[in-house]
């Protein structure tokens, strides 16, 4: 009986693997698909970054016009959010959430460095970032820069961003909407997902800054 059961389990395992393969093929492997990026990048996809695969060097400019590099992520925990100021929904919501969470953390939030990195450097100039961020916690650092520098950072940090042209010449951006959390050594630890309830998000940030 035990032998039969082992065979049965083995067969189901094969069925399971086959199902996963079918799903992978159905989801798509085009260059724009998540899986496509996963395959071409040889690293975990943007939606579920693996620990250690997210992060790297960058050189951008903050809303005061000062150069900021990956050195700014060392020696303290950090939270990075990627968005754009033309975004009416997710971006102001997330920045308002971050502002509320930082208030909730109180002085502990001083250890945390929060960055808002634009995925739309063509329209998000230093001046635009400065004006926009005035509505949120002043400890939030906005980052922009020449499009190639932004592209390089998005690649290092496994951020999906795609320009979607609109009628009349404008465009929208599809982009990863999570907040990426990094430890004192700039190592990626977790994401706060857009769908996380506020209590879960706050718990993740508290863990990150070392308060319980």
């Amino acid at each position: 009986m035990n032998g039969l059961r082992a065979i049965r389990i083995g067969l189901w395992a094969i069925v399971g693997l086959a199902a996963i393969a079918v799903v992978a093929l159905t989801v798509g492997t085009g260059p724009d698909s998540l899986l496509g990026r996963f395959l071409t990048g040889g690293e975990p996809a943007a939606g579920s970054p693996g620990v250690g695969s997210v992060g790297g060097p960058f050189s951008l400019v903050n809303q005061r016009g000062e150069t900021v590099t990956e050195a700014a992520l060392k020696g303290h925990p950090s939270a990075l959010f990627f968005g754009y100021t033309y975004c009416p929904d997710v971006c102001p919501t997330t920045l308002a959430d971050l502002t509320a969470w930082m208030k909730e953390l109180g002085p502990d939030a001083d250890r945390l460095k929060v960055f808002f990195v634009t995925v739309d450097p063509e329209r998000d100039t230093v001046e635009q970032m400065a004006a926009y961020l005035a509505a949120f916690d002043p400890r939030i650092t906005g980052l922009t820069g020449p499009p190639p520098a932004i592209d390089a950072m998005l690649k290092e940090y496994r951020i999906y961003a795609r320009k979607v042209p609109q009628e009349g010449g404008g465009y929208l951006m599809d982009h990863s909407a999570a907040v990426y959390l990094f430890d004192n050594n700039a190592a990626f630890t977790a994401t706060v997902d857009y769908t996380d309830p506020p209590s879960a998000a706050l718990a993740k940030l508290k863990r990150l800054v070392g308060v319980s």
Partner: protein
Amino acid sequence: MLRMTLAAWAAAFLAVSPLAAHEVKVGNLELTQLWARATPPNAPTAGGYLTIANRGAEPDTLVAAASPLAAKGELHVMAMKDGIMTMRPVEGGIEIPGGGSVTLAPDGLHIMFVGPKAPLREGDRFPVSLTFAKAGKVDTFLHVLAIGAKGYGDHDMPDMKMAP
């Protein structure tokens, strides 16, 4: 066109949120929970939301939205898939089925105002014109709630002044 109902006034006084709610009727449609989000300085876009109930038997369609205080209004739908936010114009407008209702809310259907002439400030009323295929056009306003407001009855929002 714009009518404050007794119920709406009662709700305004009794509800946790001290909003002076208003309700708009146009043809067979009832518009409630009309609101927009306050915008950060220089924000080139603003989101507008409402609930549309169709008391008629025939479907109607929201085909356009505009404001004298914005360069243009577009009907959009936002979706979140695999952690990626996508936003697209809604082709052909937003249909409200006969006897049914549709809610425009954050993270889904919304009006996107492009090029607001000034930032939307919390507590303001933002004028809007809505055009329906059958019910026609109606001019009303959206209550401007906090930047981070997630819904009309958002209890997290800071206190608002009672509208006169």
